[in-house]
């Protein structure tokens, strides 16, 4: 198994060459970089705008890389073959080049990024041993607080908000010397599955610019897919990391609730929200997770703190990447002894046939690697979606009560003007569910359902190492396709929300591509692991990714470089 040659054109040098050519091509649109240039349009305007000029041509993307880009770029920086500054400048140039068409970034903090990169170079020259993330350009979802630049969570009501502090994950990544290049686009407050509800305008899918990148972390997924940053942070409340990862053909990891500090994450639904990485390989996602999964005494839902508060210094840093094997280290049946459950309910009605085909094929690949894959029924599967929406929107109505357009962000507007239609819809629904006379019928029942889902999934996980499902019922769909059909939009989350209800970790890896109306579109396989079982889950996902890359992604020709 494995060992066959795979596309490896995207070594750092190749990436940079790719970026340079992209830059040259796109330089006429360079003015699109300024947030105002993107943000002036409403989501709808922008969709039209994109559609008009859209071609089916893909921009250069590195998504077909199964090798760690963090390692290859980092190695070159540490060896002095390039500098952190050079890498950072090339990625910023890539953003400038493609942002007018892709719209992945809402703001770029070029000066701060270059200053950070220079500091990395200086430290290297001084002989300091720097970690894997040193000098690696990082995109940050716009709902994660950064002391530099704006943190507007895709909303007009927070437009211009300068956070006085860095989120805990940003502190951790800066301590690891990663370079924050800017903030990525998102559905307003994370409420959406397409990134179209952003006040800054929509983001296009790099695979096909007439399609959505998914959401709400659509900007982060598109940025990684379009090689505008090496890794990115997203947040996942009901699938907001995993579904865009699937739509854009990148790896997305939603950690166990409570593993990564939420400190500095603009809250949507606090009992679901998780920060996690999007990357071009499982190994890169694991490297980022190692940096951000630290106990945080300031987040009381942080499980590491809860479990390990006896030690004053906090829990020891975790390592989710060092144990990952290289391809040549794999034995012939690397997943022997592993058991996976392919969830029957996720392959039935309403799920795209092409998607089902890819998931089943991926399962077959896992079997070839030695694993046992059973088709298993999860009876609670269908209960999750309504329960999730009742609970998440109830929490949202509470969390968003503070946005009165008086104290911070935009103060020249009102609550009713500053919040977008989707956000207002969700606040109203949540308020209704929490109101006296309704909370027993909705909120309480949803809480009970949450418990049922949790019990069901955990009981399956006591028998199986991971659950397998598609990450989304369809590949990426057309921009504007579901804007006027909120229920259709909600139901697209059916694959992911149960995982959030149960607080479990899940990773999305590529399971190949499907053709739709002449467009080649990626499909993601979701692997759901045990609580705090990220190390094992990432190991399995990594093994699958490197060992089956050609088999699964044979049609994943990397073009445009």
């Amino acid at each position, binding site marked *: 198994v494995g060992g066959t040659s795979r596309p490896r054109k995207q070594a750092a040098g190749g990436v940079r060459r790719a970026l340079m050519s992209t830059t040259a091509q796109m330089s006429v649109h360079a003015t699109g970089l300024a947030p105002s240039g993107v943000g002036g349009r409403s989501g709808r305007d922008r969709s039209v705008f994109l559609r008009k000029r859209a071609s089916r041509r893909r921009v250069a993307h590195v998504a077909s890389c199964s090798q760690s880009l963090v390692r290859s770029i980092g190695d070159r920086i540490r060896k002095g073959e390039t500098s952190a500054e050079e890498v950072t400048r090339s990625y910023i140039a890539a953003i400038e080049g493609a942002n007018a068409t892709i719209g992945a970034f809402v703001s770029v903090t070029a000066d701060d990024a270059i200053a950070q990169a220079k500091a990395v170079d200086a430290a290297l020259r001084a002989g300091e041993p720097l970690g894997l993330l040193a000098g690696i350009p990082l995109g940050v979802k716009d*709902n*994660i*607080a950064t002391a530099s630049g704006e*943190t507007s*969570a895709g909303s007009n009501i*927070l437009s211009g*908000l300068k*956070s*006085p*502090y860095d*989120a805990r994950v940003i502190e951790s990544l800066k301590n690891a010397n990663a370079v924050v290049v800017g903030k990525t686009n998102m559905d307003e407050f994370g409420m959406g599955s397409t990134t179209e509800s952003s006040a800054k305008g929509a983001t296009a899918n790099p695979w096909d610019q007439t399609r959505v990148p998914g959401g709400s972390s659509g900007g982060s997924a598109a940025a990684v897919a379009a090689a505008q940053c090496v890794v990115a942070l997203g947040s996942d409340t009901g699938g907001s990391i995993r579904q865009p990862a699937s739509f854009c053909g990148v790896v997305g990891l939603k950690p166990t609730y409570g593993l990564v500090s*939420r*400190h*500095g*994450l*603009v*809250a949507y*639904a*606090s*009992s679901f929200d998780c920060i996690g990485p999007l990357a071009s390989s499982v190994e890169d996602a694991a490297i980022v997770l190692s940096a951000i999964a630290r106990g945080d*005494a*300031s*987040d*009381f*839902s942080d499980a590491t703190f*809860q479990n390990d508060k006896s030690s004053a210094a906090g829990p020891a840093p975790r390592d989710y990447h060092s144990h990952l094997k290289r391809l040549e280290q794999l034995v012939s049946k690397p997943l022997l002894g592993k058991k996976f459950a392919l969830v029957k309910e996720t392959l039935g009605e309403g799920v795209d046939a092409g998607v089902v085909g890819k998931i089943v094929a991926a399962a077959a690949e896992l079997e070839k690697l030695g694993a046992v894959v059973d088709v298993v029924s999860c009876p609670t599967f269908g209960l999750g979606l309504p329960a999730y929406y009742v609970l998440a929107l*109830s*929490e949202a*109505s*509470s969390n968003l*009560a*503070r946005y*009165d357009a008086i*104290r*911070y962000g935009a103060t020249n507007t009102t609550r009713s003007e500053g919040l977008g239609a989707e956000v207002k819809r969700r606040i109203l629904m949540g*308020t209704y569910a*929490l*109101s*006296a*006379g309704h*909370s027993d019928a909705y*909120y309480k029942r949803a809480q009970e359902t949450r418990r049922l889902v949790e019990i069901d999934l955990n009981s399956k996980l006591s028998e199986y190492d991971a659950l397998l499902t598609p990450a989304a019922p369809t590949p990426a769909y057309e921009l504007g396709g579901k804007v006027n059909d909120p229920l259709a939009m909600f139901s697209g989350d059916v694959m992911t929300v149960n995982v959030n209800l149960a607080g479990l970790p899940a990773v999305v890896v590529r399971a190949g591509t499907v053709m739709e109306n002449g467009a080649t579109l990626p499909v993601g396989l979701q692997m759901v692991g045990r609580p705090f079982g990220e190390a094992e889950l990432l190991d399995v996902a990594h093994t699958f990714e490197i060992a089956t890359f050609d088999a699964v992604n044979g049609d994943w020709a990397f073009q445009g470089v």
Partner: protein
Amino acid sequence: MARSCREASGMLRRALASRSSEAAIISTRVSLPRGSIPPSPASSSSSSSSREGRRPRFFSTTTTCAERPVDDDEWETVVGLELHVQIGAKTKLFSGAERLYGAEANANVAPFDAALPGSLPAVNARAVELAARLGFALGAHVQSRSSFDRKHYRYPDLPHGYQITQQRSPIALGGSLDVFVDEKAVGGVGGADDGSKRRTLRVERLQLEMDTGKSLKASDGATTVDLNRAGSTLVEIVTAPDLRGAEEAASAAETFQKIVRFLGVGDANMEEGSMRVDVNVSHQTRDGAVVGERCEVKNLNSFRSIARAVAHERTRQIALLERGTGVRRQTRSFDPATGATRNLRDKEALLDYMFAPEPDLPPVVIEPAALRAIKAAVPELPSEADARLTRTRGLAPKLARAIASRGPRTVACFDACADAADAWAKRNGTDAPAAADVANWVTGVLVGAVKRAGVTTRKGKGGSGGEPLRGLPESAGAARVGELLARVAASKSKGDSSIGTSPVGAGITARMAKSVLAAMVSGDSRPIPEIATELF
């Protein structure tokens, strides 16, 4: 069972939500919705009826109600309290920011206090411990597991749009405290043997909650908001409507203040707002034929205001009840300048607080061992010490109160000295000194010697910090002080006054003992007869 306003509000809110039109008309004789205060059985308040309705004598300001006295005997004033006490002194316990009274507006604001996006609350273990301590001191059941909820309402000084509180599962339930009212000295934790009246006030619950900011009216009519206070931890104490009349209400609040300070839970300073009191006032005829609806008067900031607000409500409510129009259930404010209360909002239009579990904070769990340790560390309250010293040591009530009111260290010192003296006397077959003598020595001579020797190591006001009997050297430990007093007693009873010759008492007189004690306090650790021999 009577419910406090706070607890009842949720139920009543639900009850009213479905029948608001009906609830808008409340007459005095209708049976009231769930949650209202029922006629209190067996609560005939002989203690206070004679004073009911009169302006409390200990207040000198004229109030409007004082000018229009109403007939006392028919109507009974029923009062329950909601007290908000800020925990801890230095930092806000939900956010960790500094909490300094009198700081410049909005100078001490952490991101969480201003509800900045991404900020999260924290609960300091110390806050939980202090609240549990207060709970134990009040005899409440402190729950090993309590949880937080969000209470939603919109107000400029509440930047989150919700208050973190403990609606479903508070940190402590039940408990009570004794409130004393007498003509001379209102309040105090004193005994009941000197003519003061005792009233047992049941505590329904203690809950942790987040404090809000302050809205201030600027001179130009604008409202400004100061968030210095926002994010501090409060304990809210909700009592049953067990109090009768203005005087008891004020006295109960003062008793709470003393306990909070005594336990070191907080400053409980009403002027600075670290203790705030709401009163729920209703009236009923003594025969129970008429039970009026209650009104809540919020944010009273002095004991005097409490008494005046209750007195004003009495006049106002009885007038309404006698007119037959009934009292509307309202939330009211009190204006100290006029002595009158004013309607803030009718409770018929009850707010829907949309209570929901607080997802940012896990339940508070206090391990059984920690719970036991907190309980064990609760000092004996002055009222308890007072009663015990009278009962088991045979001290006169006045003397017992004198010791108890000095604080727990004095009580402990007295106990230890008395025990040591008894033990010495028993060992040597002499007469033990009278408890009253030990008490007088401890509170008089020993304290005086300590003060002169400058042994006092800690200064401070309130609580036990101001007690001088702290940091006594080993040379003046309880065992040696007890021995000294026992020797004095032995010398006295044997009529033996020759120094050093008496085999037991060593011939130490009371006068000599003062000098010996001073030497001991200054660090002289030689055997007591040796010190006495050298000095005389």
